[in-house]
Structure formats: structure tokens, C-alpha cells
């Protein structure tokens, strides 16, 4: 372990904490920036044991594109769900599907599960013990295979490119 990684074990976490601090105090004065940087440096050191995995972002631009895609899908998802809720409830066909996972890292799996929950008509319900399947509940879906293919292609592949 080099001195650099010992002093600054999680650079991304430190930056995020600094940003959060500046948002929380709602001002960008030099003093607050210094305090934010100090907090961003201290907190990861004090909570080192809670972060066993070191996060590496391989493709920052893919991540940005993924966030954009996700925001768009969240808005679309809301109109879909609103239509389903206001429409005829007897015609809804809810199903459970098993989504086989190719992701392995903790962070990528939890991001995928959260993305699935926030996007059209699906909620992730349970991760299997061996971490190879995710149980997903869909509000109204006629064809499970298309849904699995869409999720894998749209969300899982970019996450795999970014984190693994």
C-alpha cells in the first residue's frame, strides 16, 4: 500500500463528501471549501472499515451518459405508471421474472437493482443467495423475455463497462 492510497483511500468518496458539504451549507466561500475538503479527507479515513471495495470508474463518459439515460427513463416510467394506475386495473398483468445477472461487484449490482426499481413498471424484489439472479416484479408485462433482454441491454451492459 503506497502512502498516497493510505492517506487518501477513496478519492471519489472524498470528492462526493466535499460536494455534499457545500450543498448542505449552501454557500461556496473559501472557508467552507477548506472545511469541506477536510471533512472529505477525514471521514473516509475514520470509516475505512465500512468501505472494503475500492470503486474505480473506468469510463466516466459512459457513466454520465448512463445517468442521463436513467433520468430520462425515470420520467418516462412515471408517465407509464401513472397511466396504468389511472387506467383499468383488471387488465393489469403483473408478473415476477428471474433476471440472470452477469455483474459481480456489489456496487454494480445495487446500482442495477436501484435502476430497475426507478424505471418503467418494474421493482427489484430479491437477490438470490448465490448473487446470480435478481427477482423482479413487473406491473404490466406480457412478454418476460423481451423485458429481460431490454434490462440487460439497456442498464446492465453500461454498468458492466463502467465498473468491471
Amino acid at each position: 500500500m503506497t502512502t498516497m492510497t493510505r492517506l487518501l483511500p477513496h478519492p471519489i468518496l472524498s470528492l462526493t463528501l466535499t460536494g455534499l458539504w457545500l450543498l448542505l451549507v449552501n454557500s461556496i466561500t473559501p472557508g467552507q471549501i477548506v472545511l469541506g475538503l477536510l471533512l472529505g479527507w477525514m471521514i473516509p479515513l475514520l470509516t475505512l472499515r465500512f468501505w472494503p471495495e475500492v470503486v474505480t470508474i473506468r469510463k466516466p463518459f459512459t457513466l454520465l451518459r448512463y445517468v442521463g439515460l436513467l433520468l430520462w427513463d425515470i420520467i418516462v416510467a412515471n408517465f407509464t405508471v401513472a397511466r396504468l394506475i389511472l387506467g383499468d386495473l383488471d387488465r393489469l398483468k403483473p408478473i415476477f421474472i428471474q433476471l440472470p445477472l452477469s455483474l459481480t461487484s456489489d456496487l454494480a449490482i445495487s446500482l442495477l437493482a436501484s435502476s430497475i426499481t426507478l424505471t418503467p413498471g418494474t421493482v427489484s424484489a430479491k437477490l438470490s443467495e448465490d448473487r446470480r439472479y435478481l427477482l423482479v416484479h413487473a406491473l404490466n408485462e406480457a412478454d418476460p423475455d423481451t423485458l429481460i433482454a431490454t434490462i440487460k441491454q439497456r442498464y446492465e451492459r453500461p454498468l458492466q463497462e463502467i465498473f468491471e
Partner: protein
Amino acid sequence: MLEYLLSFLILTGAIFTFIGSLGLLRLRDFYMRLHGPTKATTLGVGSLLIASAVFFSNHDAGISLHEILITLFLFITAPVSAHLLAKAALHLNLHSFAKMPVKSIKEKERSSSDAIDVKH
């Protein structure tokens, strides 16, 4: 112009919040009810918070971005609580209109016996 933007954001937010709770009231089983609050309410409140950020940025001196903090927090926590609630419901074997894939039922029995093992 600003007033129209604010009115639009506030109305969208309120309508989606309303629809989320309507889903909670109307839908027929627990897993379906989960969809309403996690999606519609989250976006509705997010939209209201952005309206508030826009309003206070123009109202007081200086921009006000700390509402973004709550929005971010809600968008991160909503899927987590939904996932935990779904897990709890599966654990309690709540009735569902959706059919369960056969393999996962076995898995669930195994994992619930695991949970009992852990407890003792």
C-alpha cells in the same frame, strides 16, 4: 416566464404525488402497490424540490441549491426501501396476483430457513 416554469414544476409535482398515493390506495396486491409510491411520489417530490430551489434562487440573494440534496437523497433511498419492503413481503409470503417463478420459491424457502438459523 419564471412564474410559468414554477407553476409547471409545482403542478407536475403535486399531480405525481397525488397519483402515487392513488396507486397506493387503488392497486390490488402489495407488490403492485409498491410501484405507485416508489416511482410517482419520488418524481413528484423531486419536482417540487426543484421548484423550491428555483424559487429561492430568485427570491433571496445568491443561488440556493441545497434542495438538490433532498432530491438526491430521495432518489437514492426510494429504491432501497422498496427493495427491503419487497423482501419483507416475500418473507411473509404475502398473496400476489403475479405468478412466482418455480425456482425462486425453493430458493425463498431455503433462505427463510437460513434466516431462522442466523437468529439462533
